[in-house]
């Protein structure tokens, strides 16, 4: 069984293309300035459609994290324990990632991290790396 990988749609393809090029992209509304990570056709705040793609500086903090011991599907069994985090990025959006070597480190809430990319089954997935 293979890991579930993102299947880009027309809405999300610029994000995943960015990951493949080492860029973490997010949408910002030209009308109200709101930022959003999960790409969509409109701004979730003002419903305007003037969305611009921006490139993140890839710095953020661990809003929360969990050490996963029970794999949801067999494809993740070899990886346990692994750490999933919700990262709050400096630009104001949030994303979910795994934390590199997370289960071997003492993590803490609000710890600074940077986002890099991990090659998984031909896809480039964002991954959090703990900053000292």
């Amino acid at each position, binding site marked *: 069984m293979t890991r579930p990988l*993102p299947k880009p749609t027309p809405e999300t393809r610029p994000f995943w293309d960015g990951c493949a090029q080492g860029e973490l992209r997010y949408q910002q509304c030209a009308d109200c300035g709101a930022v959003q990570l999960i790409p969509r056709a409109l701004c979730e705040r003002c419903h305007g459609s003037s969305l611009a793609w921006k490139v993140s500086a890839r710095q953020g903090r661990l809003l929360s994290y*969990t050490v996963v011991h029970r794999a949801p599907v067999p494809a993740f069994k070899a990886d346990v324990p692994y750490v999933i985090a919700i990262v709050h990025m400096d630009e104001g959006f949030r994303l*979910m990632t795994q934390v590199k070597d997370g289960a071997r480190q003492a993590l803490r809430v609000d710890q600074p991290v940077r986002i890099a990319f991990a090659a998984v089954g031909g896809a480039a997935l964002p991954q959090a790396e703990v900053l000292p």
Partner: protein
Amino acid sequence: MSMNAFITGAYDTAVGELPGSSCMALHAEAALGAVADAGLQPSDIDGVLCAYSFTEPHLMLASVFCEYLGIHPGTCLAIQAGGASACIMVMQAAALVASGQCNHVLVVTGDNRLTGLSRDGAVAALAEVGHPQFERPFGISVPASYGLVARRYMHEYGVSREQLAAIAVEHRRHAARHPKAHKREPITIADVLASKPIAEPLHLLDCCLISDGGAALVVSSRAAARDASSRPIEILGAGQGHTHEHIVAAPSLVDFGCKASSRTAFARAGIRPAEIDVAEIYDSFTITLAVELESIGFFERGEAGQAAARGELGLGGRLPCNTHGGLMSYAHSGAAGGMFHAVEAVHQLRGDAGARQVPDARLAFVHGDGGILSAHCSLVLGAH
């Protein structure tokens, strides 16, 4: 204020591991049981609301069920809101009878999630609620999503694992008084702490069960309730709150829709939380109940676990909560999991809960949570 709707029938099947059971057979047993409990005939039912199934999934589950039972109601539809489904079905049934569209609405749920799916299968099916592109590639599961909530919540309000464990221990104590409960053997705080880690900080005994079972209610209009031979329970208030679906998109990891849903339900009922005699609140994980109890206003932030340790959620405590044992110890059978809470509230308000009866229970609060604290529905019920 009144919602002009009454629960006239209630029934739950055996729960736990039920070899040979099926989703539809559990639905049928629960449905006929609830109709009989109301003193009605199946032909009196003019509305049917179902939820969803993992073992017999279908685009039109309510139609599949009515075909299975051989009934032809005037109104028939399925509602899918995860763990909030049961309460939302009751709220929708109340609207159908109060508006005069139906006299007696059957709300019915059930699934043989344990024997029909296996534990691995159930865990995998549930993981599919994660966002396909922005959550599932990272190995998300329902427990991991709640683990993320737990870590942040514990950090912000100084909650310890021991305090959450006290919630699980009290649920098991409640379940020991229920002859049908899936898990009845006592557990200690040390047992919870030492149980195997699932998605830290949550361990196995912080998590709900996976069970077979079914449950149903009949909701009747004020006039039609007179047809029933049971003692009707009034739906005094109801409300919903919805903030997100995926936990990565939640506006907050500590504030959820239970605040809005309960505020609306209490306002409609004209009742304050302190007046509630017994609460039956969705407890998919220990953290779920802690967040809900504190957001709804039964306890201050960060204090639900300490209150549980002091016995305040127990029989005879300040707020007897999940007197059947909840999802953590009574049973969790998909949408029926939330319906067990509602059926238990009916038992408590009728005064027929036996060894687990809260003395003179007049007002009950019932709450369901779907997704990752995403969809919430609260009910205030009263003995009539």
